[in-house]
């Protein structure tokens, strides 16, 4: 255990990067999920086909491959663009943080698309019709009726997506983001204690998973508070 002494601060900053990555990717995931669900539910055949292709591709290919494609693909494209303006430029890359959060958000977003689609379909049509009858606009029914009724249904599966999301952040170390797994590799280089360091990374992730699981439980209780029997 004494091998970790002196590395605590590095692991702390690494964990902070994981948290940042998680929240940025989470916002993007919700965004991609909502857009995907809207496209799948729309009557527009082109939007429907694009959303279908999106979920098939990102749910059927390994996460690591999507990540590598995003990082190296964006790097080669950016370098080509930069060289068109200035031939002196050797290499430009998209920051691993953003390449990573986009790749992860697109992957988890494809799962969220299906979850949100199901949840929107689960909203009782009567409630939407009631809103219409009261003279609410399309946008107002969406914000005041569909969203509050839908997130309650989407919450349990979405909690699982959040767990997958936090676990996928570990992959971003492969493209060189300085998060916990990356810190562990550096610490191993100096201390020669791989088991201790990787177990610590595992413990950090287990802590994050626990926090997410507990938060989702509290949120579920909050979402269903109107269903509780008054005591």
């Amino acid at each position: 255990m004494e091998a970790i002494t002196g590395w605590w601060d590095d692991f702390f900053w690494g964990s902070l990067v994981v948290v940042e990555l998680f929240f940025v990717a989470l916002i993007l995931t919700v965004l991609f999920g909502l857009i995907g669900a809207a496209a799948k539910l729309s009557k527009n055949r082109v939007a429907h086909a694009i959303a279908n292709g999106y979920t098939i591709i990102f749910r059927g290919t390994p996460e690591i491959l999507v990540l590598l494609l995003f990082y190296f693909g964006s790097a080669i494209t950016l370098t080509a663009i930069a060289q068109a303006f200035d031939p002196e430029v050797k290499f430009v890359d998209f920051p691993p943080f953003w390449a990573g959060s986009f790749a992860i958000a697109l992957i988890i977003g494809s799962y969220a698309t299906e979850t949100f689609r199901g949840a929107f379909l689960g909203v009782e049509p009567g409630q939407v019709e009631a809103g219409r009858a009261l003279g609410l606009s399309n946008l107002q029914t969406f914000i005041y009726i569909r969203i509050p009724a839908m997130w309650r249904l989407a919450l349990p599966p979405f909690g699982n997506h959040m767990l997958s999301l936090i676990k996928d952040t570990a992959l971003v170390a492969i493209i060189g983001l300085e998060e916990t797994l990356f810190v562990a590799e550096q610490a191993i280089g100096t201390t020669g204690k791989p088991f201790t360091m990787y177990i610590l990374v595992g413990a950090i992730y287990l802590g994050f998973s626990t926090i997410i699981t507990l938060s989702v439980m509290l949120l579920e209780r909050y979402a269903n508070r109107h269903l509780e029997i008054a005591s």
Partner: protein
Amino acid sequence: MSFDIALIIDSIPKMLMGIGLTFQLLFLSLALGTALAIILLLMRISGRWYLSVPTMIYIYIFRGTPILVQIFIIYYGFPQLEFIRESIFWPILREPFGCAIVALTLNTGAYVSEIFRGGVIGVDRGLKEAGAALGISATHRFIHITAPIAIRLCLPAYSNDVISLQKSTALASTITLLDMTGIARTIVAETYAPYEVFVSLMVIYLILTWFIQRSFGWIEKRMSRHIREEV
């Protein structure tokens, strides 16, 4: 930047050389993981706390940490420990292939046992009671009544898990194994053509995913043929 068709034609056969390893990783860890899952399930539902509590902790740890970290702990971390280097498992844990199989098996075992538990819980209580009323012993009730129905119930979730296991096999490339992803990464390192290589590999993985889904769809249809109405 150009899109090199010749490179695609050239690299696809090279990547397919790794399909054997991908299949070995998939089928071996699926078989071992399913066996482990059955043991974990029986321990979990045994009703004895000294069997079910360790199982719950095991499942909690393996579902709460990233599979990449688990692979790194086993491949890079275990050699640090004296007693593992002297144990009879060392010939397996010395090789990256053995480590990948062990990590994937332990991980899938945790996920699949939860799926199986869901299936067992889903079996109608009345059926078990009917069995008890007929004087069938608990063991026989489990084998002849609970298990066949539970298998049918958890098949869709199980097929999803097979697909995510197939995606996880790509992570074996991070511990020097040359599966399809490992070969693709080598080709990209040489040619620096991420789009051509990674996108073609994604198509290969999509075909495999489609194949898994189709096979399970066929099995599901066959297993529920007594429910389907004759057309």
